[in-house]
């Protein structure tokens, strides 16, 4: 009996070693490709800086959405696949708020008025996303909380399609075009590097929102309750934590970040439509897994890495940019094979693993 267990363990170690060698080989191949092909193209430094800036903006957006996945996973161990749609609805609401603001002439006013109006638009987007997130939790997930883990996942996919096609029916299939006010059109030109204002705003705002989230989770009573529920839901309940309330708040926080991302992406890329949350949603999920799902700093870091790889990857590997999604999802597969718990590793309690 003992010997049998010993052999099994030895086999497992051999298998781990083999996986590690394969991983190292793949990494070496990638580095070899970057050196021989990507760097051989002879792009100037300003090119790499431009691409890195593009990547940081993408990363900022992915991070805001990825945090929603990771927060919900941390507490409920479920993937909220409708989260991309929560973001899209924030963008759609932001579009109509912008229409309203333009109708009032606020967008042509002095810069203070424009800034206040932009904050108002962002608030509308965030509030809409929060309401959608809360409704999702109440209608699609709470009734299934005792069900096997696969059931709420299917419910989430259903909710995602429901939201997409509701938007299609109500607001039409044509994309809605955001009109940037003059204040945030254009950008800074530093030599051969161009930083669009919207890109800078996305990156700075996402960092500020992430700091705010970190503060809420680490420094407030609410955050302590969230961490307690994440650690052990039933014990937390016994200690007097209102678990239902904590779960709702978690959805609200995640959705607010997604709503902000939706509005900012609307201003940055200037179009939103019924399915514009789908791809960013998948990418953000990838980012969350990359950093270690359930792990908050991991989601931020994973998102930044994913954004950078997506922007720099095609040029560095010397392949057409149309394969950027392939690179992102190949990364997801590699991470799942070689480091299933993500780059930041295990911070999870035993129960979740």
């Amino acid at each position, binding site marked *: 009996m003992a010997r049998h267990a010993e052999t099994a363990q030895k086999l497992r170690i051999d298998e781990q070693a083999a996986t590690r060698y394969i991983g190292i080989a793949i990494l070496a191949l990638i580095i070899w490709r970057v050196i021989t092909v990507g760097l051989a193209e002879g*792009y*100037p430094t*300003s*090119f790499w800086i*431009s*691409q890195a800036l*593009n*990547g940081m903006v*993408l990363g900022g957006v992915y991070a805001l959405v990825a945090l929603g996945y990771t927060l919900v996973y941390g507490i409920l161990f479920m993937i909220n696949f409708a989260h991309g749609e929560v973001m899209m609805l924030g963008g759609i609401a932001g579009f109509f708020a912008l229409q309203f603001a333009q109708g009032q002439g606020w967008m042509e006013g002095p810069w203070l008025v424009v800034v206040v109006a932009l904050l108002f638009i962002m608030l509308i987007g965030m509030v809409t996303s929060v309401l959608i997130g809360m409704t999702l939790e109440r209608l699609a997930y709470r009734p299934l909380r005792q069900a096997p883990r696969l059931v709420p996942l299917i419910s989430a996919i259903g909710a995602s399609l429901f939201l997409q096609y509701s938007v*299609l029916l109500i607001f*039409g*299939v*044509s*994309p809605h*075009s955001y*009109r*940037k006010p003059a204040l945030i059109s*254009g*950008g800074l030109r530093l030599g*051969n*590097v*161009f930083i*669009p204002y919207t890109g800078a705003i996305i990156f700075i705002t996402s960092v500020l929102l992430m700091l705010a989230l970190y503060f809420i989770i680490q420094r407030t009573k609410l955050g302590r309750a969230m961490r307690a529920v994440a650690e052990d839901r039933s014990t937390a309940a016994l200690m007097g934590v209102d678990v239902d309330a904590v779960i709702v708040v978690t959805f609200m926080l995640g959705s607010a970040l997604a709503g902000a991302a939706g509005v900012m992406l609307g201003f*940055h*890329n*200037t*179009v939103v439509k019924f*399915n*514009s949350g789908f*791809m960013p949603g998948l990418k953000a999920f990838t980012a969350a897994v990359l950093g270690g799902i359930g792990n908050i700093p991991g989601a931020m870091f994973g998102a930044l890495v994913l954004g950078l790889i*997506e*922007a720099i990857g*095609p*040029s560095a590997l010397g392949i*057409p*940019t*149309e394969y*950027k*999604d392939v690179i992102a999802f190949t990364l997801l597969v590699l991470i799942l094979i070689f480091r299933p718990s993500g780059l930041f590793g295990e911070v999870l309690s035993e129960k979740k693993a």
Partner: protein
Amino acid sequence: MQTRFTTLGLLLVAALALAGCVGMAPVASEPPAEEAAVDMSGKVVIASGEKIRIGGSFALTGPIPDPGKDIRQGAEIAIDDLNAAGGLEGFMFDLVAEDGACDGTQGTNVGNKFAADETIVAVTGGTCSGETFGLIPILLEARIPFVSPSATNPDITSSDCDVCNRVALSDALQGVVDADFAFSDLGVTKVAVVHDNSDYGKGLAEIFQNHILALGGEVTNFEGVQVGDTDFRALLAKVGANGPEFIFFGGYSTEAGLIAQQMTEAPGLENTLFMSDDGAYTRQYLDAAGEAAEGTYVSFVAGADAEAMNADFDAKYLDKYGVSPDDLGPFHGQSYDSVKLIAAAIKEVALVDSGGNLVIDREELISAIRAVEGFDGLTGMIKCDEVGECGAGGVQIFQVEGGAFNQIAGFGRE
């Protein structure tokens, strides 16, 4: 074991026969239809009181929903006009509109739907080339002829496909005219080509690239994006690193507009000109590009407009849908003519039998479309050649000026 299967099979056959009887019952009670059921393979039989059903595959969702809707509405006006003129031998026309979604898979689904419906006589559509490539094998097998108003990929028509026809002009022409315009009129030699990986966009981009190279120009990049992408900055930074004088985009409105907008911010592309195609000759392009649209070029495979007829059509369209056709998309004229062409061919081959049914032989209809003598459509003289190219007109080049398209070269201006 053997006997059990046989019994099961017999049971199944019996069940099917029963189901068939039940299904047939109401039809059988009408004498003309019963008669029609006798050896009518390869023929469409329309009982009196029924309508002549023409299928329509339109891109109502997908990347170009507004042009898709416009094409559908153009076809509906044609059906209205045909019926207002008394239909055909007292039989009215009917349009069976399906959503082809500008997508090959969805085109296949629509094709299967039409093939399974024996009452579909012919098809107008699809809107996009990819969608139409999905339709072709199914309609070819089902012997249902189609006329596309707007699929421009050169390979839509070929000598291998007798059911394939179009009123739109082939990109074999558009790509060459666009390349000539860029090289000769604009005088650019360093060109980047971008496409959206659709059958339409990529096909056109390749023709453009080949012709630029043939003229002696240089192609710095040939890059693809995906339909539905919204962030092209990484791509444009890569293109900008080679400093092209001109970017040609083969694809649809939204992506074209966003590329035009984002390239104004990309290092190395500050003074680069931008040109796109008939897929971008829409209001959606102007919306998506915003101010960056100013000064950009698009081409369109235009018909030879018959002014008086078009004014009449525009008035009917505005009256029925409350919107001017040009606000939605460019291909309504071609769509109207597609339906009219199909109707003209049906008129040539349809016979009324002794029971008062309208009988249309499928094979005869397929050849009749190519044999239509030619008629004055909204887009000019519609007459098909031996591979199914039925369009009239030529390629026009527009430049955006003051938020509107202004023709600067090409067909109708020489």
